[in-house]
Structures are given as structure tokens and as C-alpha cells.
């Protein structure tokens, strides 16, 4: 995009600056619209599985429900509890929301359509996702109220636990792709299995890692059945209990942006990202971002499906799953994958 603005007569620095700003807007604005529609979709899918109608009043088929909700919270009063730590109380939702947007910088939407094509793309995603916990923890502490505090403690423990196994799962993908760069990871999946299937998921050695990643992703974003941080039967609304108005809306948007990010990571790391499912000429006629979007929506449907059907985990079960099942298994898989690659790709001995 920088060249386009340079052709308009700008020097390189300005062209780069304007191109980057445009890139950010091109990602952030559709993302916000996508989040609004995905909240609607989530409620509709959930309703359909519970044999209800879901939102159907505002706009055709209730399509504008999210915007009505947004307008509602926008007009509400921001209530700050008198015992709360004011500065941190207001910073916390901003952190959550900002962090939810940051990671999208390294997502490849098409070959070349990536805001920051950096060497350490996947590590960047890990780094950003490890920041997400602060929004929740600070909110819980700054609210100065017991339920948010319990929730913050749970969230911190939960996110750290599952980040460990996510890290190992991503190492398997990186080993196979031979790069941390997101674009190269997608390109490495081109015809990776039997020469015509695009996507690491069809690889028998990496398939279990995808299953683990999907479940860990749900735990990492605190989606049902791992939504212990906002378990309403125990903690009112968890860390959001004291929040109202736009501060609450920022949590809401940030949470769904994170869910979308997890779906996107599933698509990019295991299902070939913007590549079509099969390495066959005519399929490339469809633009890459359409394939990516289809995959993201598919994974979001799985997330909603699980939310609507699976009961919430108990806290000790959550910890057991993270530390006693996922961690040893992903650790074993790192050994298996690197051993296999050493045998086949890198020619036995060093």
C-alpha cells in the first residue's frame, strides 16, 4: 500500500505513515463491525439450540440488535464505585480492548495482505495474548469488591495455565512450518498433506494438537465451558460486576474480538488460513480473504455450539485438564514432532 501512496506524490516516510494508518483502519473497522455481527450470531445460534427465537425485534431478523445494545450502553451513566481505585478501574477495560485489537496486526488476510509482516509474528501473538490477563486482574483488584476479586484470581490462574500448553502446541506448528512468520506458516501449509490438502490439520501428527488448541483457545478466551471468571451462579458477573456503560461495553467488545482472534488463529495455524482447502487451481479463483472468513465463521460456529451445549467446568477440573492432561500431552507432542522432523526432513543425525 506504501507504493500506492508514493505514486500519489508523497515521500516514503509519509506514504508509509498514511499506508499504516489506513491498514489499521482497514483491520479495526471491519473487526468492530464483525464483532457486532458475531455477538448477534452467537445469540442466534445459542437461541436456536435452546429452541428459542433469539433477538428478532430490532431491524430485519434482529440484525441491528448489537447496534441497539451499543447505543444503549453508550447513553448509560458510567458508575465508579466510591471505594474503587479510580484510575486503574478505568484503565482496565481500555487495556482489555486495546490488547484485543493489537494482535490482529500480524494476521495474514491474504498473501501479502498483512499489516506487520514480522519475523516473530507468532511470538508477538503469544506476547499480546499474555497481556490480556491484566485487563481482568486489574479490574478485579481496582473494583475493591469481593466477587470481581475472586474472578480476577481465577482468570489469572486459568490464563497462565492454558497459555503454557498453547505455547507448546504452537511450537509444534512452528517446527513443522519452519518459521515464526505468520505468512510463511500459511504458505508452508500449501499442499502439505498428500500434496494437495492445504492445512496442518490433515496431518495425523498435528491433528491432536489442533484439538488441544481449539479447547485451549476456549479456555484462554474464557468462553463456555471454561467461563469460570464470570460464572454467574457463583460470582455475579465476575470481574465485570462493578462495570457499567462504555467500560462494560469495552469488555464485551474485547472479549468477542479475542474469540474471533482465536478462531482466526485456528484457521491460520491449522486450516491453511487464506488458502483454499485443496491445492487445486480453480479454487484459487475465490479470493483468499473469503476462504479465511469462511473458516473463521466455521470456528465461531463451533465455539457457539460448545457454549450452547456443554455445561460449565468445575474449577479443579479446569486446572486438572490444563496441567495434567494438556501440558504433558503437548510436551510429548513437541518431542514427537521434532523427532519425526529430525528423522524425515533434516536427515537423521545432526
Amino acid at each position, binding site marked *: 500500500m506504501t507504493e500506492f501512496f508514493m505514486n500519489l506524490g508523497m515521500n516514503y*516516510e509519509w506514504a508509509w505513515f498514511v499506508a499504516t494508518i489506513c491498514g489499521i483502519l482497514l483491520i479495526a473497522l471491519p473487526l468492530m463491525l464483525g464483532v457486532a455481527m458475531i455477538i448477534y450470531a452467537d445469540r442466534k445460534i445459542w437461541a436456536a439450540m435452546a429452541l428459542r427465537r433469539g433477538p428478532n425485534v430490532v431491524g430485519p431478523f434482529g440484525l441491528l440488535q448489537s447496534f441497539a445494545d451499543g447505543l444503549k450502553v453508550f447513553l448509560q451513566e458510567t458508575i465508579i464505585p466510591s471505594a474503587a481505585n479510580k484510575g*486503574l478501574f478505568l484503565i482496565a477495560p481500555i487495556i482489555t480492548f486495546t490488547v484485543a485489537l493489537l494482535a490482529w496486526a500480524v494476521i495474514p488476510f491474504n498473501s501479502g495482505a498483512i499489516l506487520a509482516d514480522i519475523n516473530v509474528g507468532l511470538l508477538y501473538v503469544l506476547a499480546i495474548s499474555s497481556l490480556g490477563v*491484566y485487563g481482568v486482574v486489574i479490574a478485579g483488584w481496582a473494583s475493591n469488591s469481593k466477587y470481581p476479586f475472586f474472578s480476577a484470581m481465577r482468570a489469572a490462574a486459568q490464563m497462565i495455565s492454558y497459555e503454557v500448553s498453547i505455547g507448546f502446541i504452537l511450537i509444534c506448528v512452528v517446527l513443522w512450518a519452519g518459521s515464526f512468520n505468520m505468512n510463511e506458516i500459511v504458505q508452508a501449509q500449501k499442499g502439505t498433506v498428500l500434496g494437495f490438502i492445504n492445512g496442518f490439520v490433515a496431518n495425523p501428527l498435528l491433528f491432536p494438537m489442533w484439538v488441544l488448541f481449539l479447547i485451549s483457545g476456549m479456555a484462554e478466551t474464557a468462553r463456555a465451558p471454561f467461563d469460570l471468571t464470570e460464572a454467574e451462579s457463583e460470582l455475579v458477573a465476575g470481574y465485570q460486576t462493578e462495570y457499567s456503560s462504555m467500560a462494560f461495553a469495552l469488555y464485551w467488545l474485547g472479549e468477542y474480538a479475542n474469540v474471533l482472534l482465536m478462531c482466526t488463529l485456528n484457521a491460520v495455524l491449522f486450516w491453511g488460513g487464506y488458502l483454499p482447502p485443496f491445492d487445486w487451481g480453480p479454487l484459487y479463483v475465490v479470493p483468499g480473504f473469503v476462504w479465511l472468513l469462511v473458516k473463521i465463521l466455521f470456528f465461531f460456529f463451533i465455539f457457539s455450539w460448545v457454549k450452547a451445549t456443554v455445561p460449565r467446568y468445575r474449577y479443579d477440573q479446569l486446572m486438572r485438564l490444563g496441567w495434567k492432561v494438556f501440558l504433558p500431552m503437548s510436551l510429548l507432542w513437541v518431542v514427537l514432532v521434532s523427532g519425526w522432523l529430525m528423522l524425515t526432513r533434516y536427515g537423521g543425525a545432526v
Partner: protein
Amino acid sequence: MIQVFSFYLFAALTILSAVFVIMSRNPVHSVLWLIMAFFNAAGLMVLVGAEFIAMLLVIVYVGAVAVLFLFVVMMLDIDFAELRAGFVKNFPLGLAIALVLLAELVLGIGAYSAGALEMGHAAAAASPQIDGASNIESIGAVLYGKYLFLFESAGIILLVAMVGAIVLTHRERKDTRGQNIGRQIRRRPQDATVNVRPEVGKGVQL
């Protein structure tokens, strides 16, 4: 131009947040300023082209270590009056430590400006020079090539430390009722229920 601007921005913010770490009265604020300092230090790392180290700094320190700090500090019940109570008593000691640190700083900077110390170039000769390789590749080549045994012994030391910490803090509790998930899944209805048809007035013997 932009590099100079970003350097001074990150450096100033790092120092400023480091100052606030020791200045703020609330320990939770201190930890949050510490996180800010880590973050800006990562920014400085990116500026010198060490993006891998920068990401590791954020993942390890901000993402894990600082969360645990925050975890512990938030749990503390802080009495601010008590924190300030020993100020006069501890002031001379604090002053002495500050003076020692100042003297060391002056000495260090003085020695540095007098000329760099010759430390030898033992490592430089054998380490592989990879042109155009990314951070990760160069670090990997050195860490898993030349320093493989040092790296592995560091790993073993950490493992021993981890096992030691677990052994020291582990206590066997007899009164808890743990959940054996395998046993629960293996359990079938016929193991748990019996269907009896008692005669009228006889009752059931269980």
C-alpha cells in the same frame, strides 16, 4: 529521526516507570509500573533489532513473572500506616545503601570513561556468523550448537529447582477427597443401583 524519537520515548518511559516503581506508596501500583518498565524495555530491544529477545521479555516477564508478582501483592493486606512507621528507624541504613550504590555508579562510569576493559574474544571466534539470518536462527545456532551443554545443564538445574520447590511445599493431606475421573467414567448404572421388589411389610435389606 523516527528511531531517535522512539529511543528517547522508550528510554524516558522506562526510567520514569522505574522511578515510579520505588516512589509509589501502593505495592500494586509499583508492580504495574514495573510492567510498564518491562514493556518499554521490550520496545528498546525492538529498536536495536533484537525482536526475539523483546518478545521473550514480554512473554516471560510481563506475561508470567509479573502476573505472579501482581497475584501475590494483591493478596497482601496492606496497612499504609505500618509501612511508614519504621521510616525514621531505617533511614540511616537506607541512606548508607544509597551512598554505596551512588559510589559504585560513579566508580563504574568513571572507569568506563577511562577506557573499556579488555575482556578477550574467546567466544567470538567459534560462534557461527550467519549473514542475513533472523534473530531466532542466530540465537538457536549459538544456543544449540556451541553452548549446547551449558544450555542443557541450565535446564537440569532449573528442573532440580522445580522438583525441590515442589517437594518442599508439598504436603500429603489425608482429609481431602480427591476425584478419580477414570473411576467415575468406568462406573456403570448396575454398579451403583440395584432394583429390588420387596414383599409388602418386609422392608429392604441393604
